[in-house]
């Protein structure tokens, strides 16, 4: 029988390495055991993939080629809500945070979705393969202007961001390195660059044009040779800054909020030992990502980091839909639901810039807080939802009557388990006990008090963390 600590830890793992889980699911994972569950998450191929054909059959719009972000957001939401490979999908979201590519410029959600699919395939594989695929990804090439990076007119956009945001971080290369790196990626472009008008969109694909590639010598990070893009990636991987940068991103996304990325060369990591150890693992395994994930999820610092991160809007929306079972498959509201993270400040597939989103407390402002609270409260107070009925049943499963304080504790337990500060707890108890201190389980009054308490818990500060 799983203890409350086991449940709390497994719920934490599922929130971070996935999008949350119902109590039934958590209890099943507890029976399998923590380390085995981590293995199952990492070995994502052991679970079936999302049945995309069901999506297309019920939502033909999701297969229509188009520029708008919204249909793409509906597609991705469907994946996140229905996936049985939660870590694979969470890693795709992680790489989307790091390699932020946006519809604001790409204006082609199909290519953005292809990029996300590439993250699903390679996101837990090898970082070198991933970086190479990224350098050849049509959406990325267009997003960072590498199609404008020519032998006789280098464009530094991709070259710079590759170093600054995708691999090393500010402070670990010079302006000359940016220029030389960009030269090495000349001729890495997309076919076909036919104009969209008047005939519509043409699919892009990666193309290397030798005649537009600078074949002369380059000096990059202290090495000299006639480098091509692939050589540049290999040199990047030899830098000590590279594994540190990537593992700090992993720590920031999965363990606890770090400062915003531009501050990383000024502010040290919260946990330098963890970054060093994870970096060593990454290098020792030739940049295979799974060993790093395994070490991180099994570490004490991960296990101790419960509620150390402000949930991203995507985590709020997907987690709530999954746990309340408000959406479980094709759904007439799919497109509308796909926009919800955007209302809270995270337009997936359309980040504010190549820097991605500012995370942590910057997710919260008065507008986004209202949207977050209402989105969750609307659902957890709705007993029509199967997931909410299970939560109410759980609250009432300990006897035929309960005190206001017990009811609050059971609600906090099923909503997390969530620890709240004393004042928050007192307020919750006062609210429940305003209707009398004894509650008869199973009554309509009980159901109402439980769901109101869920809604109030969803509105707390503590619940904004995950």
């Amino acid at each position, binding site marked *: 029988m799983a203890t409350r600590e086991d449940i709390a830890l497994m719920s934490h793992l599922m929130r971070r390495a996935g999008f949350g889980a119902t109590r039934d699911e958590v209890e099943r994972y507890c029976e399998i055991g923590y380390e085995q569950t981590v293995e199952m998450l990492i070995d994502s191929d052991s679970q079936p993939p999302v049945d995309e054909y069901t999506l297309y059959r019920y939502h033909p719009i999701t297969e229509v080629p188009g520029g708008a972000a919204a249909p793409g957001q509906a597609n991705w939401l469907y994946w996140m809500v229905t996936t049985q490979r939660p870590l694979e999908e969470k890693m795709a979201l992680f790489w989307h945070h790091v390699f932020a590519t946006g519809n604001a*410029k790409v204006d082609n959600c199909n290519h953005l979705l292809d990029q996300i699919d590439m993250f699903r395939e390679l996101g837990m594989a090898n970082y070198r393969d991933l970086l190479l695929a990224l350098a050849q990804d049509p959406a990325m090439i267009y997003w960072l202007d590498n199609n404008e990076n020519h032998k006789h007119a280098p464009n530094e956009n991709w070259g710079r961001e590759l170093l600054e945001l995708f691999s090393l971080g500010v402070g670990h290369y010079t302006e000359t390195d940016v220029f030389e790196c960009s030269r090495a990626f000349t001729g890495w472009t997309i076919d076909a660059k036919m104009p969209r*008008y008047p005939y519509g969109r043409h699919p892009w694909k990666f193309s290397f044009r030798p005649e537009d590639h600078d074949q002369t010598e380059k000096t990059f990070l202290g090495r000299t040779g006639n480098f091509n893009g692939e050589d540049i990636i290999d040199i990047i991987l030899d830098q000590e800054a590279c594994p540190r940068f990537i593992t700090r991103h992993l720590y920031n996304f999965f363990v606890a909020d770090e400062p915003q990325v531009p501050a990383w060369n000024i502010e040290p990591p919260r946990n330098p030992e963890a970054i060093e150890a994870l970096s060593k693992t990454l290098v020792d395994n030739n940049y295979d990502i799974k060993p790093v994930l395994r070490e991180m999820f099994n570490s004490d610092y991960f296990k101790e980091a419960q509620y150390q991160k402000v949930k991203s809007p995507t985590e709020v929306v997907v987690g709530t839909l999954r746990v309340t079972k408000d959406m479980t498959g094709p759904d007439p509201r799919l497109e509308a639901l796909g926009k919800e993270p955007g209302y809270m400040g995270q337009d997936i597939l359309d980040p*504010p*810039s190549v820097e991605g989103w500012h995370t942590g407390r910057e997710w919260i*402002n008065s507008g986004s*807080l209202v949207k977050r609270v209402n989105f969750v409260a*609307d659902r957890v107070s709705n007993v029509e939802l199967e997931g909410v009925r299970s939560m109410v049943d759980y609250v009432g499963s300990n006897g035929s009557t309960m005190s206001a304080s017990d009811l609050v504790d059971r609600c906090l337990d099923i909503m997390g388990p969530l620890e709240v500060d004393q004042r*928050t707890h007192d307020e919750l108890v006062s609210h429940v006990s305003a209707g009398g201190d004894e509650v008869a389980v199973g009554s309509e009054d009980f159901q109402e008090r439980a769901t109101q308490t869920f809604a*109030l818990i969803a509105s707390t*500060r503590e619940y904004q963390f995950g």
Partner: protein
Amino acid sequence: MAANGNGNGKPPVLVVLQLTGGNDYFNTVIPYNDEHYFDSRPSLQIPQDRVLKLDDDLGFHPAMGPMKDIYESGDMAIIHGIGYANSPRSHFRSMDIWHTCEPDKVGTEGWLGRALREIDPNGENPVTGVNIGQALPRALVAPGVSVASVADLSTYGLLTSIEQQEQREQMLSRFANMYGPAVGTGQVMEYLGQTGLDALKGADILKVAPDKYESTVEYGASPIASKLRDIAQIHTADVGTRVFYCDYGSFDTHAAQATTHAKLWQDVSEAVQDFWDDLRENNADDNVVMIMFSEFGRRVRDNGSGTDHGAAGVGFAIGPSVKGGMYSEYPETRPEALEQGDLVPNQDYRGFYTTILENHLHLEAPPIVNGQFDAPGFLQTNGH
């Protein structure tokens, strides 16, 4: 700083109405004597006798009757040929360029977000900026700036799914207590506490607006009418909002433009006229300027049923302190003068913003719009 200028010492208020999707400038302000207009619009031309003539050369689309009335009252400036070089002809990129004032790179801060930070640097009023709509436009986004985003004023607030009013009131008072000052609980918790109280305060402030509001103006049934009525309600409640934002569309008329474009402009024109009637009736118009823009104009030659994405567009400014008339030049329409078949912009949109920022909001424009731009003088600078 900005309490002088227009409107009897009341602080200036800006209302932005975004025409989303790319409004067809060529069929909005029509050069009705121009042979090139008739040549390039075989399917979508408006016959001369139906154009609402503004002067000897230009006139409005026939659906814009109320807009013509406002123009003739002297309260409307029409800013021609607005845009920027190298239009990407992408909705998303173009809208971003308008929102962030960054035509050459992807920007993160919105121009109105920056303006709000100047107006209310300590974030003292949670409703200094109000967006009427679901998603917050990037124009209003800047670090440290809180903007209330209201999908529907009549239902705005926290925990709106709790139907019993008494229960909800009790829960909101619990919320206020839970978010009260939390000393020593950590920076993020304290920040969250303050933000929660701001959200509650903002909702409380806005909640009174519909009750305080009185008007004999009956708005139409279109969504833009209800958005502008929400703005009128909040504005007349005098809660300190300085920037309002709303949008209407979609003006993306690739097909069936004849009927769609007419309907859109009918909705906008009527709603705008009702809005100003409403403000006048409430004696609340003096300190208000409204601007309208679209992310780009459309292709000069029609495609048989609609028009494709283009470049230069038209901006409007409306209000008692506006010096009515036309500004900048109508772009050349000769086929040889077009770029990729589009009208070429001759008025940078950031100059349009500059006039608003400096002569209405009394803010220094260059840091907000990222530079110095030729600013058309469509606002009276010393009251009126």
